[in-house]
């Protein structure tokens, strides 16, 4: 008979990310970017952004090996041009969409009574308004996600690059679906929607050929979602920071790449302090303190993220996939600025 015994748990090693970037260095690069961008009417900003990203990436060290940012200014510039063209095209399409809606409405209004005609035209305005909101929200989602995918593909560690193999369009559709469900459920569905979206992104993320796994369980978040949602009116939505912190913690703990797991030691109080100080820095320095905010954002991740498990990644191979498309397209036109989305 086999002896039943609890297998002895092997203690997993843990590691912290080391970040050695320094404020004076970031200031130097940031100021040079501003000056050269002014002199070149903004064109240098793409190369400047790359310079800053390269600096930051090379200062992020894991297990003795630094990360590398391999994107180029040319790629970002090309992406920006593509973004402008895409935005223009989308504007034309939206205008055609409006014209069709109003044409159909006018057609029906023509054959209706005065009161009905007014109602039809009001309905057409409502539909076109909704179309406008959904269309630009979708564009925003595509922009943010494409940029994330691009940045992920341009960061290497030990020469192996990351990848997110998921369509930005599908991401936008899912994001819209979940947003609508969140609104309809008065926020009670938020934790399920957020975890599902994170699962979709995580399970399509790769380090080389190692695909990430996600063991999330939204049930563990329902209570904090419910309470912070109830408190969001009296606290002017500040209570949601506690939910956000719980979600970040949950998502990191649920993600696994190869044998590596993660833990992110963040609380609502920490997030509140972080955002408040950032706001104060930006407001009191009239924007000149922006490098401090960047540094604080990166340090927040580095100081609180723990990597659990054996970093023996010798089995991980380089992905054979083509690199994600050039530049950040729409994001450089309508999306978030650099390091704004770190947390």
């Amino acid at each position, binding site marked *: 008979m086999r002896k039943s015994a609890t297998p002895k748990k092997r203690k997993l090693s843990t590691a912290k990310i080391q970040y050695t970037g320094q404020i*004076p260095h970031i200031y130097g690069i940031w100021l040079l970017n501003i000056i050269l*961008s002014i002199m070149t*009417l903004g064109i240098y900003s793409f190369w400047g952004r790359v310079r800053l990203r390269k*600096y930051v990436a*090379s200062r992020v060290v894991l297990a003795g090996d630094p990360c*590398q940012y391999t994107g180029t200014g040319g790629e970002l510039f090309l992406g920006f041009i593509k973004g402008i063209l895409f935005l223009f095209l989308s504007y034309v399409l939206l205008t055609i969409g409006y014209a069709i809606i109003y044409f159909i409405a006018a057609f029906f209004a023509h054959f209706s009574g005065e009161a009905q005609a007014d109602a039809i035209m009001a309905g057409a305005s409502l539909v076109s308004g909704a179309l406008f909101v959904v269309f630009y929200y979708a564009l925003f989602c595509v922009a943010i996600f494409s940029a994330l995918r691009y940045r992920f593909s341009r960061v290497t560690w030990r020469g192996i690059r990351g990848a997110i193999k998921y369509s930005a369009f599908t991401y936008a559709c899912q994001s819209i679906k979940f947003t609508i469900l969140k609104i309809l459920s008065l926020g009670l569905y938020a934790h399920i929607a957020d975890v599902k979206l994170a699962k979709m992104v995580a399970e399509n993320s790769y380090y080389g050929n190692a695909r990430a796994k996600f063991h999330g369980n939204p049930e563990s978040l329902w209570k904090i979602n419910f309470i912070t949602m109830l408190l969001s009116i009296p606290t002017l939505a500040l209570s949601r920071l506690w939910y956000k912190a719980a979600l970040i913690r949950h998502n990191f703990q649920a993600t696994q790449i190869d044998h590596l797991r993660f833990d992110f030691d963040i609380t609502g109080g920490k997030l509140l302090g972080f955002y408040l100080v950032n706001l104060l820095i930006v407001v009191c320095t009239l924007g000149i303190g922006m490098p401090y905010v960047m540094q604080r954002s990166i340090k927040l991740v580095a100081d609180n993220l723990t990597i659990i498990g054996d970093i023996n990644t010798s089995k*991980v*191979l*380089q992905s054979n996939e083509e690199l994600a498309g050039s530049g950040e397209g729409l994001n450089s036109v309508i999306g978030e600025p650099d390091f704004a989305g770190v947390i």
Partner: protein
Amino acid sequence: MNAVGKYYDGMRANSHAVVITLTSYKLVIEDRENGIKLSWEFSDITLIESPEFGSAFSLSNKTRPAERLIIADLDLYKALIIQIPLANKPLVRVNITKSRGCLLVALFISLMIVYAWVLPQFSSQIARVFPSSWAKYIGERHVETYEEKGLVCKNTDGIESLNKIIKRIVPKEHRDKINVQIVTEDTVNAYIVPGGHVVIFSALLDEAESPEEIAGILAHEVGHHLENHPVQALIERVGVAVILSGMEMNLLNFKYSRDKEVKADRIAISLLDEARVSKRGLIGFLKRNSGSIFDNKIVNYLSTHPANEERISSLVVSNTVNKPTPILSKSEWIQLKQICSKPGV
């Protein structure tokens, strides 16, 4: 010359501690522990990342682009960089040393001074050579946005009353350059944009108690136009901020300095006097509203046209020669008040 570094083969996530030897035509990379020995000829080496603030630099090989070599030795960098073909080092950049850093800070401060002090100082001179067709174009585009949204009030009787005020207040030689529009907006505000377009919000019209108040405000805005203040404000704003953030200029919130407000007031008083319109309208409107700083509706006009006791009292003591006569009849004033209502309402 020897140095140590890290080598990644680009295939597996392995880190190799290597010894690098610089010879006369190649780099020899050796991982003695794992028995790896590679030779990279100078013509194949690409500089991926140059050292920044004393950091390591990174190299790749043109024939195997996924491979990476990271070296911290700056002496090796100096010796190697002159050997690599120019086409393979697109990212060679000027390092930010302490003295260059100071220069950068000085440049940045100079730019800020240009933006905050030099541009406003010379805005009137620059405004003089600013093409009027550009100013007209900018103003027209701004006003068109109200037109597109159907916010411009077009009641015919109201427009007739408005034209009567314009005809009296605006000197003949400037009349074709001034275009006044009443726009349906729930904020008490009136402003002028480049090109002579005056916009008066309907809430201001509702707030006004007499046609002389509207005439006074119009005269004040015309004063800004005659002094070229809108173009100057445009120049002051077209600076670093616009280039940096790419933000659109909000012509609605152009705020003028106290001096410019006083100048516009002086012109307004002389225009009102010439037109035989009482200055009490303008004074009354400012007086009545200067105490209402907690009323959001009023704040907008006052935030762009700061009115303090000094400004009001200088308006009170200003000399007028002509005896004022009413600018509109009672019925015309009612028609003007109803300019935003639909015809027949």
